[in-house]
Structure formats: structure tokens, C-alpha cells
């Protein structure tokens, strides 16, 4: 599903002295079946933006088009289930949404709300628990007996179980150890390869460089940059404006370019960096 934002403005607590602008006239297109990363400082409107995609928030003005549905300020709260079934959302610290007495029931909760039969939901739960890298024996345990990282995986499994076409991830790896982070990010990349749209909010620029196809840069409720990771990280205006930081490889390349190395374009992944260095050393 393609997602299109058309002049979307969102004001919190409209008509009130406490009002604040979450989104300011945002127009952007998120491509189908691609891995899109949304980056920007804390409070730049990233979460507000993605909450519009499954109508948890509605635009104050403008419209959001998700597949064949259009969400405007007049959109009714009824009949949103088909939309939410297609747009899975993993919130920040999703482990806080677990509540059932077993892991299995918790994973089945979403699919069954969306009308899946109990047997299908059960088999889906069995598939998903393995997909997120946990053993089937965990299905019988209480989610509150698990470790933080395991709870996170169960929560992600619960979102994936209803088989959404679009998956929105709000910092899914915050607070995970490096190995866990790599596993989880690898899983999302794999899901994208299988034909799903992934939207990722993150502060980790290495993840952006390694996994994303497209990047959207936000600042003060506006979109200030768009493009491939390589385009965005080479954008002089964004860098000097302090609106983003570079991935480690690019920072290293910047330091190298002060000594005798020359890069036409900053290499943003470890692979790109090592190829470049190899070429330049051999070419000398």
C-alpha cells in the first residue's frame, strides 16, 4: 500500500492556550514495499506522523491516503479495523502492552480482534514466536515471567501475527543489546524482502544506513529532507543545520578525508567504506 500525506497539519489541543503544532503542512509519499526510515530530533513530529497512518490521530487539516482509504479530520472512528489490520504498529517499548496470562493468548489477541478464527490465530502464534527467535515452549509461559528482551519479541510477534501489509516500527530496538538489535532489524529487513512496507522511526543512523531504502528527515513538525540514505547523509544543508548526525562509517570517512583520502560521496555503510579504502590504497 502506498501512503500519501497531502498537506497534513496536526495541532495538539486545538483551540486552547496549551495548543502546540505536531505537524506543519506535511506532504510526503511513502513507497510501497520499501523500507522507509524516519529520522529527526526528539519532538520533531516523527511519532505524530506515523500515528496518522492507522488513524490513531487524525489530521487537523489535509488528508492521508493509505491504499484505498482516505483519512481526513472528518473520518469516523467506526470501521477502522480493516485499516488497522493492514497497518501493524510496534510502539516504543511494546512490552508494556502485554496483558494475557500466557504468551500464546497474547499473540493471538490481535489476530482474533481482526476476525481470525481461533485455530488460525493459534497456528499464527506458533509461526510468529519462532520468527521472532523464541522457542515454542515460551508459548505456555506468562509474559510477565520473561526478560525485557523476550517480552519485546513477544510484543512484536503479537503485531506481526495479524499479518499486516505495512509495519510501522517506533524505535523497536531501543534498550536492546547489540546482538538482539541485529536479529530484530534483520527480521524486519527479511519481512520487507517478502513484500511488505516497513516504516522505521529510529535515532540509530547505522540502522538507517544498513537497512533503509528511503529516508525522511523531520524537524519542528516539517519535512526537511527526503531521499535515499546516501543522498540524505551527503546533504550539506541538513548536516550544517544540525538536523541529523552521520552513521559511524561516514564519520570515519570524514576524518580520513582530512588526511590524503578523498571521497566524492560519503560511504555510509561499513562495506562501502572498506571498498572505498581498498580502492584508494590500491589505486595510489
Amino acid at each position, binding site marked *: 500500500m502506498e501512503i500519501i500525506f497531502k498537506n497534513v497539519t496536526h495541532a495538539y*489541543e486545538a483551540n486552547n492556550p496549551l495548543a502546540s503544532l505536531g505537524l506543519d503542512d506535511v506532504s510526503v509519499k511513502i513507497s510501497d514495499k520499501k523500507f522507509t526510515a524516519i529520522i529527526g530530533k526528539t519532538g520533531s513530529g516523527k511519532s505524530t506522523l506515523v500515528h496518522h497512518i492507522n488513524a490513531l490521530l487524525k489530521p487537523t487539516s489535509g488528508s492521508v491516503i493509505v491504499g484505498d482509504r482516505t483519512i481526513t479530520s472528518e473520518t469516523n472512528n467506526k470501521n477502522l479495523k480493516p485499516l488497522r489490520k493492514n497497518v501493524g504498529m510496534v510502539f*516504543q517499548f511494546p512490552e*508494556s502492552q502485554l496483558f494475557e496470562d500466557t504468551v500464546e493468548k497474547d499473540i493471538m489477541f490481535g489476530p482474533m480482534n481482526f476476525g481470525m478464527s481461533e485455530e488460525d490465530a493459534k497456528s499464527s502464534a506458533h509461526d510468529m514466536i519462532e520468527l521472532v527467535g523464541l522457542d515454542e515452549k515460551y508459548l505456555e509461559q506468562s509474559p510477565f515471567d520473561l526478560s525485557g528482551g523476550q517480552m519485546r519479541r513477544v510484543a512484536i510477534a503479537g503485531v506481526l501475527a495479524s499479518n499486516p501489509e505495512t509495519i510501522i516500527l517506533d524505535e523497536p530496538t531501543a534498550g536492546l543489546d547489540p546482538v538482539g538489535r541485529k536479529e530484530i532489524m534483520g527480521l524486519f529487513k527479511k519481512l520487507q524482502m517478502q513484500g511488505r512496507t516497513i516504516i522505521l522511526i529510529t535515532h540509530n543512523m547505522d540502522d538507517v544506513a544498513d537497512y533503509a531504502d528511503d529516508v525522511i528527515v523531520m524537524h519542528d513538525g516539517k519535512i526537511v529532507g527526503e531521499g535515499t540514505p546516501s543522498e540524505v547523509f551527503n546533504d550539506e544543508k541538513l548536516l550544517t543545520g544540525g538536523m541529523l548526525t552521520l552513521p559511524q562509517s561516514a564519520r570515519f570517512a570524514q576524518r580520513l578525508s582530512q588526511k590524503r583520502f578523498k571521497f566524492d560521496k560519503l560511504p555510509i555503510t561499513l562495506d562501502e567504506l572498506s571498498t572505498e579504502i581498498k580502492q584508494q590504497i590500491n589505486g595510489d
Partner: protein
Amino acid sequence: MNKLILGRYLPGDSLIYKLDPRGKFLITFYFIGIVFLANNVASYGFLLLFVLFAVYLSKINLGFFLKGLRPMFWLILFTVLLQMFFTPSEHPIWNFGVLTLSKEGMVISAYIFVRFVLIIFVSTLLTLTTTPIEISDSIESILKPLKAIKFPVTQIALMLSIALRFVPLLIDETTKIMDAQRARGVDFGEGGLIKRIKSFVPILIPLFVSSFSIAYDLAIAMESRGYRDGEGRSKYRMLKWEMRDTVAAIVMIVITGILLMIRSY
């Protein structure tokens, strides 16, 4: 829930904001007490003028005030109508079974209406201009004499200030969990009563669980920073009673005097 302003704090800067919170707290309760002294049109009018003047002094937009209290209006209307139709009278204008409409009933219900407005206005003015932490500080300082009868004032004050501090956090957590469950296909406020009540289980359990973990973390953090109990602590936030607070107290006494005069007039 977002529309009601009763109990919320609105950042600002004016004379009312600067008053000592203890004084403000006591004055508000005192005022609610003397509202019941009023017994005729002139005295109610006088109190209403005074409250409007206080709102004016706070520099809070009167329109914002009225709009924020609109949800309370139905409660007031309900009480007023009950009073209006159930006041027995010797000379009813209209009579139907137990329902009576009379001049006395109308006058009494008008008084009740004004009383409600006065009380809601001053208490809203207190919470809009005083931060929760100031309120809990003033409760602690007002309750201090109760220490003499072994009432655990410091513990109560600590619990109160922690509770107040965590109200917005728990509200945020609630919205977050609600959103997460909505994204998993829960419909809140749909279906029959039983279904509606059931739909709150996926919010309440995570909320309790996270409250437990917050409480546990907070207790550990407090202990590791050297907290033993309330005894023998010094205070960082000192409340200061100034000239303007004395003036405010004197104004209240003057108002009581005037009110007593109008009352017996």
C-alpha cells in the same frame, strides 16, 4: 477528558500566580465557606463580582475559563432543575403531581446555580494558578499541627507529591497503551456494557503492571540516594509569606464583613 480544565494547571504569570500557595489554598476554602453566608441577591451579586475580579487579576482568558467548565454545566443544570421542580410551596404557579413550579423554587434554584458557579470558579482558579507540587507543599505545611497527635504528615505529604508527580506520567502511559491496543484491533466504547467493560482489561492489566515496576524502581532509586524516612530532612522548596499574602488575607476579612452587612440588611 481533555476538555475539562478543572484540576489542571495553566502556566502563567500574574499576581494570583505569585501568591503564597498556602494562603491561596486556605483562602479558597475560606471563600467556599463564606459562599454559604450569602442569602440575598445583593450578597450573591457581590460575591460573583469578587470572583470575576479575581479571574481578571489572574489574567486568564475568561472565555477559556467558561469553555473549560462547560462539561460541569450539565451537572449544575440537573441539580438546579431538581431544586426548581421539587421545592414545595404555598402558592405554586404550576402543579403536576409532585412537580411544583413556584416563585420560591425559582429563587432557590437561582441561588444554587450561583453557588455552584462561585465554588467551581474559585477552585478552578486555584488549580489553574497553582502547580500540583505547590498544592502538596501547602497541604503538608497546613497539616503540620497534626503531628502533635502522631498523624504521619511527612509520609502523607511524600505520598501526595509522588502521586501528583505521576498523574501525568500515568495518563501518558494510559494513552500509549490504549493506542497500542487500538492498533491491535480493540474498539473502546463500542458494543454493549459488558463488552465495553471487557475492552478495558487490556489497558488495566498493563497499567497496573507498569505501576508496580515504576514503584519498585522508584523505591530503589530513592534508597540508593540516601532516603530513609521523612524525619530530619531539610527542604529545598521554601514557601515564603509576603506582604501581598497578608493583603489577600485582609481582603478576605473585609469581604466577610461586607457580606455580613449585606446579609442582615
